[in-house]
Every structure is written in structure tokens, then in C-alpha cells.
């Protein structure tokens, strides 16, 4: 199994509070991704990173920010959580990028509930 650890695995918070989810990898893969999964929507990309300090937006990036100061860590921050951000968040890593058929390796997910 790919070495991906997400923390926390479960979190309940209140509207308006900041939340940070952490993804840690031991594979030294270049690409890291944050997805959210909601019923009827599959997996939707929030942000991704193609190297240290190199990040880009996905299709549902509003209300989220990310940082990658080290190869192994990719942080997802909700500056002011809203109920619409209640979801299961998945981190994924990939050794390959554009032009490749790179497999994504997923973490076990972080379930966030915003009350």
C-alpha cells in the first residue's frame, strides 16, 4: 500500500471556524491532490500540487487554500468553514503528471462535519 496518511480522520466543527486537514506521504511522489466526495458528485478536485510551493486550483477551489512546504506534506485549509463544506475529503498522490496515465493512490479519507 502507498504510504499516505490523512489527519484528522474525523472532525466536527462549527460554522466560521478554521480547519486544516493534513496529508502526509512517504513515497516521495511529485503530485498531490485534494478531492472531496459527496453523494451524486463522485470525486471533485479542490486543489493539487505539482511540487514544493507549486499548487493550482481544481474545479471546486472556492473557500479552500492549500500549502506544500515539503514534498511529503500537503495541507488543505478551510479559512472559515461552512455547512456546504461538510464532506469526505481524500488526499491522493501520483508519481506521474501531465501526458502520463499515472495512477492515483488515495488516503483513507477525512470526514468533516460543519455544524
Amino acid at each position, binding site marked *: 500500500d502507498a504510504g499516505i496518511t490523512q489527519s484528522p480522520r474525523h472532525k466536527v466543527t462549527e460554522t466560521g471556524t478554521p480547519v486544516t486537514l493534513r496529508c502526509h506521504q512517504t513515497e516521495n511522489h511529485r*503530485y498531490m*491532490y485534494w*478531492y472531496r466526495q459527496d453523494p*451524486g*458528485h*463522485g*470525486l*471533485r*478536485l479542490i486543489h*493539487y500540487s*505539482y511540487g514544493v510551493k507549486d499548487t*493550482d486550483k*481544481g*474545479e471546486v477551489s472556492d473557500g479552500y487554500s492549500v500549502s506544500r512546504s515539503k514534498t511529503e506534506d500537503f495541507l488543505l485549509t478551510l479559512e472559515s468553514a461552512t455547512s456546504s463544506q461538510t464532506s469526505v475529503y*481524500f488526499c*491522493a498522490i501520483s508519481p506521474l*503528471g*501531465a*501526458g502520463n*496515465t499515472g*495512477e*492515483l493512490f*488515495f*488516503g*483513507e*479519507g477525512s470526514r468533516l462535519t460543519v455544524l
Partner: protein
Amino acid sequence: TQLLEQSPQFLSIQEGENLTVYCNSSSVFSSLQWYRQEPGEGPVLLVTVVTGGEVKKLKRLTFQFGDARKDSSLHITAAQTGDTGLYLCAGRSVGNEKLTFGTGTRLTIIP
């Protein structure tokens, strides 16, 4: 935003039956992947197809990539209870670092 529509959204069949699920888009993809996800876990890759018309077999699972590289299908022969799960297709466009996922098909195999 490229959309990948999967059908059916839900499928419940008896063990031993055959089934096909579909993944359709109006966009062309350089490659398409199928993932399977079990409750409480992240998706796991089943297969990657890259050539229009390509067919890949993985034991009882047969994957096909459409000739125009806009659609794909997954056929399961003699379904088993262990096949139960959420099946997700995901497409990657040429030169795109992002993988777009479909809406998913939740499959339940009844013993």
C-alpha cells in the same frame, strides 16, 4: 469542466448474473481509468486504458475504451458478492495534470 456521466447510478443484482456499467463524456480523453471504492476507504485503481477501442480483461472484469476515446464500459461476468462497491471512472485529457472523475456507480451483489 469536463463531465463524466456514469450509468446506472445504482445497480443491485443477484450473484452469478452479468452486468455492464457505462461512463460517457462529450470530451476526448488521452486515457481513462476505472477505480473501485469500498466503504470507509479510498478508491483503488483497477485498470487504465489509453487506446481507442482498447479492451482489457482483469479476471471476470472486462473494460473497453470507446473508439473515439469519449466513453468506456465495464462488464462483470458472473458477479460475486466481493464485487460490491462504488465504481468510478476517471478521464485525463491530453496535457492535463488533472484527473476528472465520473459520478460513480454503486453496485450491490445480492447473495
